[in-house]
């Protein structure tokens, strides 16, 4: 993934270590907006859910982008808007050189053939009356890939690929499978047409941890064996980081931070990313208890807060955050944040964080060099 606006790189003229692969991105999303109108009984308009509000990112061939966000952050809506199901309200989605928002009918179907989906609940996405063999064969039939014999042979190959013995499992029904096995079948179906992009929406969230590790390793193996790119959506930051080259953090319909997975975890720039990291239970006893827990709940996406959407829960928020929406800024190579007061800077003087830290005494003067911070101090 690259950040849309190329910005000033650090003074040293060394080549950037995280130089993205050159060439065309596989998927390019620009200013994507998805909204849903909420109506009362009788049809009167109640409000507009701003589910996705101006999201932009690229995925290069062979790259995995992880999107992390909580319930209601719009991450699943984003995935479906990319798929044009339903179509986004505005913005562009360019996949393998084709503008999906302008395609319809057969040409959209052909373009989408290379973009497949794996959902959270494998049993909900597999027809209970069908046998495993027919489920995996379905996309081959839909796209007229080969005759019956060739398709059956391909189904066996696919089941082998996801680690399921075709002799044992091809004739079973979904209810005769465990959750992990059912998810493997869903994955076999998704890769049947040799897609170049797999969109995984909470694809391992419902699995036990040992089974989850098996499926994550399967995704990893398919990535290297088939050269797949992934858009990997989950609420678990540690899980997303495990599989992703780059990570984007989503809050209330907007990306608030994007960057290399390691950088987002080691040097988070957005206060919300820090809050997410602090909430992860650690295997160090008492670690989670020591850090502060973020208060409150995400506001409604029907009337999202003005300016920065995270400001109502942010310990660093000032008046500026309510007045002006922060634009994404690249503060380190490939690492961008949409925040007026990113964590690389000391908290602004009038914010709750400073007041509570200083405990009533005068806040320490912010060092010069950051104009927003010095302005806030004065």
């Amino acid at each position, binding site marked *: 993934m690259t950040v849309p606006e190329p910005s000033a790189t650090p003074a040293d003229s060394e080549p950037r270590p995280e130089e993205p692969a050159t060439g065309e991105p596989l998927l390019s999303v620009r200013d994507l907006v998805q909204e849903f109108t909420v109506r009362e009984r009788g049809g009167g308009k109640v409000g507009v859910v701003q589910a996705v509000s101006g999201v932009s990112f690229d995925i290069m061939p062979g790259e995995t982008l992880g999107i992390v966000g909580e319930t209601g952050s719009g991450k699943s809506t984003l995935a479906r808007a990319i798929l044009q199901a339903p179509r986004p309200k505005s913005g562009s989605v360019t996949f393998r050189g084709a503008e999906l928002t302008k395609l319809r009918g057969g040409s959209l179907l052909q373009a989408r053939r290379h973009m497949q989906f794996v959902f959270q609940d494998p049993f909900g996405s597999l027809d209970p009356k069908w046998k495993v063999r027919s489920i995996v064969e379905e996309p081959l039939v839909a796209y007229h890939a080969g005759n019956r014999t060739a398709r059956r042979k391909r189904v066996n190959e696919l089941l082998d690929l996801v680690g399921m013995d075709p002799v044992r499992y091809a004739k079973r029904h979904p209810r005769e499978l465990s959750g992990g096995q059912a998810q493997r079948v869903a994955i076999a179906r998704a890769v049947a047409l040799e897609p170049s992009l797999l969109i995984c929406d909470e694809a391992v969230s419902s699995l036990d*941890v*040992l089974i989850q590790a098996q499926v994550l390793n399967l995704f*990893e193996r398919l990535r290297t064996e088939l050269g797949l790119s992934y858009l990997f959506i989950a609420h678990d930051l540690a899980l997303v980081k*495990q599989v992703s080259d780059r990570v984007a953090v989503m809050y209330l319909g907007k990306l608030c931070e994007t960057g290399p997975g*390691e950088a987002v975890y080691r040097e988070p720039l957005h206060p919300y990313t820090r809050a997410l990291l602090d909430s992860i239970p650690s*295997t160090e*006893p008492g670690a989670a208890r020591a850090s502060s827990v973020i208060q409150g*709940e995400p506001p409604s996406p029907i009337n999202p807060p003005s300016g920065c959407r995270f400001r109502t829960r942010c310990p660093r928020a000032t008046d500026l955050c309510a007045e002006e929406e922060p634009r994404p800024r690249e503060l380190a190579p490939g690492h961008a944040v949409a925040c007026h007061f990113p964590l690389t800077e000391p908290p602004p003087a009038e914010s709750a964080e400073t007041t509570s830290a200083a405990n009533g005494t005068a806040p320490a003067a912010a060092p010069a060099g950051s104009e927003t911070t010095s302005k806030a101090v004065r």
Partner: protein
Amino acid sequence: MTDALLVVDDLRVTFAVGGREVRAVDGINFTASPGATLAIIGESGSGKTVSCRAIMGLLPAGTAIGGSARLRGTELLGLSDAELRRHRGSDLAMVFQDPARSLNPTMRIGLQITEAITTHRKVSKREAQSQAIELLRLVRMPAAERRFHEYPHQLSGGMRQRVMIAMALACRPKLLIADEATTALDVTTQAQIMELLLDLQQELDMALIMISHDLGLAASYADEVIVMYAGKIVEQAPAAGLFGAGGAVRMRYTRALLDAIPHLERSAHTPLPVVGGRPPDPTALPPGCSFAPRCGYAEDDCLAKVPALAEHAPGHSWACWHPCENGGAA
């Protein structure tokens, strides 16, 4: 432990499924003490939920339950429904995973909490209502008076779980069992609810049993940790004895669980250490250690003989013929 509130001794639960015997819980012992948090960890089907439901008397009639579970000396197993109802609420309470399904969607939440109070106590309607609002404040519900008049669908998942906790606390139970109470919640909400549960536990001096599949949650919030596999306890220790600088996991299964959790410290695209296979069929358990067929360290004795759970170090028990040295960290 001398001041134990709940003493569970050799608890066994057997279901009959299609003429075959399923030993869901196979002889487990533990205690729960006021002001302490016990975490019971295991995968789906390990018996963690069934053992707690047996204590609460929530298993279907016809289930064979053996052993004993004594609350301050009173045997809970085998009590009649009427006797159990006296204990539930005032002594024992439980919070479940899915608050949306546990709440009545057609009743305002205030009425549901009020009902929980009047079922167990003889108080006037007005008194019960003011207690219900007090409970909503206790669980840090924002705008408690307003929420009192709302329906479950008007609340977020985290707020619904707060309502469930308020109902569970209506009669100030001595023991609260939280069965995957935060699993369906977002990570920031999970942290809020866990903080709330631990705060309330200290305020009310309750014993807390948290059932979870997440070892990380146990490490962060529990005092004592039990790991279950195929109906048995395979490792038991204080949290500090398992995790962190001074801790060492000994049982191979606990190690496998810990290794399979994606850690932020692990670099991307590195394969996770996995164990193959699935938990054994509970109707046909292997003759030796239940985990042996999946264990990379199993030897002949593991397949032949069941290792007993024994206290090998002070406070730290495990059931393994070839335990990890130094915690087995890779």
